């Protein structure tokens, strides 16, 4: 019963419209625009999350436990924040009348209702998923291994790239997949901070909401596409996790708090 309850809505999306019509519905201008906006903004977001999140996670994972717990809690905050609050927060910080609004205005930067705003919203909401998992992945690396590397003459950079990074790779991949899934589905913060302008800031999730009123089949088609993307992400997380536990220590989604020893 419970299982059916969870599966039924997903099946219903595919059952309502035949596959052929789903594809043609995806061909509509609105759907294509939304797809382009989503892919573009999410690629930039993921690049930012990986580039800044990975060293940050490594830094956090190698701190002493008390500091680590405090920082991880701060990082996790956007995770539990209601999306609407995230949107308001972003506006209050980066909007024209926000904290940094004056500075950005003086520099001639106006990001509200642009794709930059979408990227910021997605990054803000999705990055904790990556950083959190990445911290756990780095923590799961046996501390004797980086220590051994150091006694073998490896400086901090070499320890990171040749030991910590490859050993944490599976966990990092799983974290990236989770962040990507969250980013693709981003809705609340984006609509408040970036709006839903077709061809500019309207992502797939926002398009579903709009098409819901205009053309239900298009809404269904986009939903079907997102179900497939999400399913693929879930599967790849599972596979990465299994591959990782086969190669090193298995702690894929363990909380990032670790008892000090």
């Amino acid at each position, binding site marked *: 019963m419970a299982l059916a309850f969870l599966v039924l809505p997903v099946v219903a999306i595919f059952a309502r419209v035949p596959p052929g019509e789903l594809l043609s519905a995806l061909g509509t201008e609105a759907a294509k625009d939304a797809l382009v906006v989503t892919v573009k903004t999410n690629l930039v977001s993921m690049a930012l999350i990986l580039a800044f999140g990975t060293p940050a996670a490594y830094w956090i994972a190698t701190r002493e436990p008390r500091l680590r717990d405090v920082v991880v809690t701060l990082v996790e905050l956007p995770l539990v924040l209601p999306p609407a609050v995230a949107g308001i927060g972003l506006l209050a910080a980066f909007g024209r009348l926000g904290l940094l609004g004056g500075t950005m205005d003086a520099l001639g930067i106006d990001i509200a209702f642009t794709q930059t705003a979408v990227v910021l919203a997605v990054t803000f909401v999705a990055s904790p998923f990556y950083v959190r998992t990445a911290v756990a992945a780095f923590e799961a690396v*046996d501390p*004797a291994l980086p220590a*051994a590397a*150091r*006694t*073998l003459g490896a400086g901090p950079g070499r320890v990171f790239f*040749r030991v910590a990074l490859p050993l944490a790779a599976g966990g990092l991949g799983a974290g990236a997949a989770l962040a990507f899934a969250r980013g693709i589905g981003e809705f609340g913060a984006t609509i408040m901070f970036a709006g839903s302008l077709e061809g500019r800031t309207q992502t797939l999730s926002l398009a579903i909401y709009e098409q819901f009123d205009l053309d239900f089949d298009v809404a269904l088609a986009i939903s079907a596409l997102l179900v497939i993307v999400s399913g693929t992400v879930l599967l790849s997380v599972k596979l990465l996790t299994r591959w990782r536990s086969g190669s*090193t220590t298995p702690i894929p989604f363990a909380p990032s708090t670790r008892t000090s020893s």
Partner: protein
Amino acid sequence: MALRIDYSHSLRPFDAHVELTVAAGETLALVGPSGAGKTTTLRVVAGLLRPDRGMVAVDGETWLDTSAGLERPAEQRRVGYLFQEYALFPHLDVAANVAFGAPRGASIDELLERFRIGALARARVRELSGGERQRVALARALARRPATLLLDEPLSALDAHTKTTVRGELHELLRELGLPTIVVTHDFEDAAALADRVGVIVGGRIVQQGPAAGLVAEPGDAFVASLTGASLLPGVARAAPDGLTEVVLDGGGSAWSTDAATGRVGVAIHAWEVALARETPDDSSLNHFRGAITSVVPLGNRARVRVGDLVAEISSASLDRLALEEGDVVVASFKATAARLVPLA
């Protein structure tokens, strides 16, 4: 080329104060209970732990001198560190593990051959046996051309069967290398087999050091005595006629020793000094204890027989001749000259 260490570091629940010099070609074994500061000492030398205060110098090069604010990072100290469980890189094959710390142009193949792991060059770490892992870890540590060797429990990850062979090979290797070496172990037998000198470390202090045979013959305290495998009979010592010391044992009866002592002591006696007989023998031994045999453990051509608090090691031939079995009442005897008295807290 010697290794000099002198450091203090606060470890809960005690402070470690260790001062040591290991000469070139000398192997020092640090033996003691877990948490005594053995591994801490290795980490201080390697630069993996900065002590509250101290200095480390190898071959005239100062690696650490807290009073001068000098601290060389771990990666710039030429140590060959063999980690407990070996800490091999699981994502690299054997050759890449060995090559990790090797200087450019170093011949890895030669090292692989020397340690008989040439055929395993492309193997993953998880495919290796315990003995193979140990050889890979040694080859990896030596590829760096270290100035000193630090071995943390090099034999504890091995099964009993492999251990004796590996121990012999390791002893041979240490002699060939001629580096100042510290071996950390909790096993006195391993320490005696590998090291020229044994330092017993308890609660962060070296309580006694010297050749293994010296520690066996003259244990400084009860811990060293039991570490070397002696039986310990606690009691109170007082001077007796003829220059002897009588120890009134807590378990009843008295023991005599030629060592001088007063107050709380332990009578330390090694198993090979204890003789067994059916009746009290009329011999030169002053100490005779009658009791029932509680266990008989055969060890090849010998057997360890426990009688009360005493353990006697006798030949299998004697065991057969006397037809000793558990529950038999026998007399365990040892000479006053073999009974060492160690202070008890």
